[in-house]
């Protein structure tokens, strides 16, 4: 897998620090599962966190804290799983939400060739899967905020370029685009937005409203 479009470094940093909300964390974790380069960047940022932890002013615990921990050391803990046995091509972080097969997702039909599935994430962003048959795409829109799109299968293109599995497209509010799935396998994306999209045209506006884009 050749990944050419990576999440911005501030996104990797917000994930590593724990500041990212659930939708962004899911997108970054899914990308990082596919991208060794960003995995290393996240590990680097986590080492920065380790350094912050090492240098933070300590605050004493309650005087009996160690004793109360000691009493819990022998309690049987849940079994530790050393890396789940994953099947299929769904990145591990996403499997926690949808399982291991894109075909079993309860897709909601939007228009011919296009369907969506909203993911139950909490926080300031919304996350959804978008499934587009070749030639299908999301209607022309701009953004009120930022939008990040991780390609899971297939590929899509817009005026800014071509995006393949593992790529993350980051858009700014200014960009007006009509992402369209390329010929070939069905294109499935994980899209995270921090504000609703702004569709051009009445029908797309209504459809967008209904499906919560």
């Amino acid at each position, binding site marked *: 897998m050749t990944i050419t479009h990576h999440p911005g470094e501030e996104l990797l940093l917000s994930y590593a620090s724990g500041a990212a909300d659930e939708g962004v964390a899911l997108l970054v974790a899914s990308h990082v599962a596919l991208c060794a380069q960003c995995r290393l960047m996240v590990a680097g940022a986590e080492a920065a966190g380790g350094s912050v932890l090492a240098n933070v002013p300590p605050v004493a*615990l309650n005087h009996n804290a160690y004793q109360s*921990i000691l009493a819990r050391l022998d309690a049987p803990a849940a079994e530790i799983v050393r890396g789940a046995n994953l099947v299929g091509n769904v990145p591990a972080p996403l499997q926690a939400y949808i399982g291991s097969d894109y075909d079993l997702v309860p897709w909601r039909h939007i228009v011919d060739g296009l369907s969506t599935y909203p993911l139950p994430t909490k926080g300031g962003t919304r996350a959804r899967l978008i499934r587009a048959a070749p030639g299908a795409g999301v209607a022309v829109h701009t953004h009120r905020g930022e939008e990040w799109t991780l390609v899971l299968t297939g590929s899509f293109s817009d005026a800014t370029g071509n995006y393949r599995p593992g790529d993350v497209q980051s858009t700014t509010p200014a960009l007006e685009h009509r992402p369209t799935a390329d010929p070939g396998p069905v294109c499935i994306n994980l899209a995270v937005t921090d504000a609703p999209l702004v569709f051009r045209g009445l029908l797309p506006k209504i459809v967008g409203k209904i499906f919560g884009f």
Partner: protein
Amino acid sequence: MEPVDAVRLNAAVMAVGQVRDRQAFQELFDHFAPRVKGYLMRLGAGNAVAEDLAQEALLTVWRKAALFDPAKASASTWIFTIARNLRIDAIRKERRPDLDPNDPALLPQAERGADEGMYWAAAEGRLKVALAELPREQAKIIELSFLAEKPHSTIASELGLPLGTVKSRIRLAMARLRLALGDGV
């Protein structure tokens, strides 16, 4: 932290993981529990919540020490990720009573290859040096990202800087860290 200190703390986690060494665990508790508590309070947690999570973090250290690999991260980095994940878990529980136990933030990171692990062990030392040598304004932003854990837009307005400046400082700082990690990145 002195390097020798880091080596001793790594060894203590190993001893807990391999032979359930309670003396080593007490050393880890004495060193890290107050720092985890301090870190959580800097992030705005109250005393009681920070106390509970710090205890929980050290209990997790006891239970998962066998998974610790000093070739991949130092003890403080590993314990940082434990504290971070417990805090995310606690916050999401507050906001969502029906927390999904399969929260992605709690899943283990994908395994690194052996080569990558060895590479990383060598790189972490260089990274610490690079962090210490960051220009003050970049170091401040990185520190705020961890200790204030606010959106970058909030950090920008608190520092009275345009968001673009904050983002470009993050990029510069991360580029320096990337350099410290070597050309392979």
